[in-house]
């Protein structure tokens, strides 16, 4: 493992056995996570982003979900080959997860305080009094007012935003080195979403964890991420720093994602929509999985899968358009206009 990497994923393949065949949900994903950074994984539902993180946490549904190939290195140990007992020492302690729906990820029959203390008692072997003190500290950290009285309440007495704060407090209980947030704000209103995102960024500065942030909202990505990986049909099609991916996108799928979100300034008559639907992952297409929906597709796209082409030291994209023999293709007008319209010269305000 490289020195400043906390996690390395190499050629990870995850499949599910179903009645109609083997669903290849993740088809060879490689990335690394550096200390203290936030990596966002974006993609549509079914692109494999959640399955990837489930594999990281060792939470693939048994027995039909399994890691087919590849490795996940954490502390020089391969998580995929770990026994469940050893994994339990990592899960919740070194790596913690925030789930999408705060309505269902809390136990409705347990007091909130007890749920936050659970991890502390189990992993850190704290006494009850100590755990209680720490739980109050955590609730202060995630800015829940009156923690002493609120920890005696049940989840239904909390609003959606407050519940998500409880979930974040639970995840942070054991000072995890990696925090995986699976669409943590999708179920929340925009104003509450903004609060939770600010809170997560604050906490990250204080406790220096690395965050893997899964979302399909590119606005949220621009807000929280240092680096972005764009996933499509079980593969990473583009990865780079947030600025590189947003201001210099190379993959047609990224163009499509950016183009299909209206800007607040845009007046264009029609949104740049990606036609069609994602492919069936029981029998993925032979070539580039995006080719059928891609109006820039080359002949080779239907025959052979593109490798990752290097754009810069940190920016890679899997599209044949970057091959030296490929015709020069510019992003669609609407996407180009959008990037130009992001005027960040001094004094520009919106």
């Amino acid at each position: 493992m490289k020195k400043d990497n906390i996690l390395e994923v190499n050629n990870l393949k995850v499949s599910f056995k179903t009645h109609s065949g083997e669903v290849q949900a993740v088809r060879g994903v490689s990335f690394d996570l550096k200390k203290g950074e936030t990596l966002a994984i974006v993609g549509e539902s079914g692109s494999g982003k959640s399955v990837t993180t489930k594999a990281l946490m060792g939470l693939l549904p048994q027995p039909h979900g399994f890691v087919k190939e590849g490795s996940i290195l954490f502390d020089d140990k391969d998580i995929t080959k770990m026994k469940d007992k050893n994994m339990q020492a990592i899960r919740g302690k070194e790596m913690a997860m925030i789930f999408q729906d705060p309505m269902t990820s809390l136990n409705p029959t347990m007091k909130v305080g007890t749920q936050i203390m659970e991890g502390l008692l189990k992993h850190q072997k704290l006494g009850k009094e100590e755990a209680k003190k720490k739980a109050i500290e955590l609730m202060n950290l995630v800015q829940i007012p009156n923690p002493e009285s609120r920890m005696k309440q049940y989840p239904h007495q909390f609003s959606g935003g407050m519940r998500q704060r409880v979930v974040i407090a639970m995840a942070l209980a054991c000072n995890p080195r990696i925090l995986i947030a699976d669409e943590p704000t999708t179920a929340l209103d925009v104003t509450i979403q903004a609060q939770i995102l600010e809170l997560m960024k604050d906490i990250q500065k204080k406790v220096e964890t690395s965050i893997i942030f899964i979302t399909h909202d590119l606005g949220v990505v621009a807000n929280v991420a240092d680096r972005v990986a764009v996933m499509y049909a079980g593969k990473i099609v583009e990865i780079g720093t947030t600025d590189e991916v947003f201001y210099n996108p190379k993959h047609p799928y990224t163009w499509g994602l950016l183009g299909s979100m209206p800007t607040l300034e845009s007046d264009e008559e029609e949104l740049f929509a990606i036609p069609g639907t994602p492919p069936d992952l029981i029998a993925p297409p032979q070539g580039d999985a995006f080719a059928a929906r891609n109006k820039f597709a080359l002949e080779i796209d239907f025959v052979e899968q593109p490798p990752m082409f290097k754009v810069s030291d940190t920016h890679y994209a899997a599209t044949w358009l970057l091959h030296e023999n490929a015709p020069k293709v510019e992003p669609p007008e609407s996407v180009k206009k959008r990037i130009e319209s992001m005027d960040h010269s001094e004094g520009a305000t919106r």
Partner: protein
Amino acid sequence: MSQEKLLEIKNLKQHFKLGRNNVVKAVDGLTFDIYKGETFGLVGESGCGKSTTGRSIIRLYNSTDGEVLFKGENVQGKKNKTELKKFNRQMQMIFQDPYSSLNPRMTVMDIIAEGIDIHGLAKNAEERKAKVYELLETVGLNKEHANRYPHEFSGGQRQRLGIARALAVDPEFIIADEPISALDVSIQAQVVNLMKQLQKEKGLTYLFIAHDLSMVKYISDRIGVMYFGKLVELADAEELYKNPVHPYTRSLLSAIPLPDPIYERNRKRIVYDPSQHDTSEEPEFREISPRHWVLCTSKEFEEYKKEKQNTVTN
């Protein structure tokens, strides 16, 4: 601009009784007009009453008080069957969740033709079939889909079925209650494009209810912002985004994350504090500049107007 009013909503109220001394005023005195051929966007946080408004207008709930005039005719209150039928043909709804709004035990053919059957719009089975095929084509599906069941379709396709069903009776007005929030980003754009194209072809009027402000801005001509059962601001879409006046609208706009990293890094969020208003006076809905309405007290009204003039002269 002289525009024909298609729908006039006057002091609409929808209160739910949740036991003794506990009344939820989900919609509390809404008054606005919807013009023919426009898209009226209704935004607000969950629980602000925007969906209830849509459902009360189309009579899914019996409104507590107020009138809804459709082409000058009140559609609320007691109605007999023929009156209801006539009204039901003119107003249709597209629902949020394309999974629970289609009957899983009916074929696509029967789902779409249900309205046609009820209103007797097809003379025989041939014509009924032809109509359904045509509707499927209109929404970008094809006739092979007619004999399938809803579970065989993806979310985006199901929402297209929902649209085809709404279109089946040739309505003039469609209420779309968060029609895209359950869909993926790339599919959202497809459905929005389809809705826009249908509006152009058929001259439809939409009430578009959503919480995704950037999409609402894109599709709407005028936008109303709701907060706790009341409209707090109503203006043309451009105007509302360029010159929001009510502090709640400002805080809502400042919370939208944009796909622009540098902007996001420097974003300043405005927090709305309802206690900033003077509560000694009941706020009223007033027009601070042509076509731009804000809920405010008389003192705030003067301030807003002054602010407004300053921005115009600068």
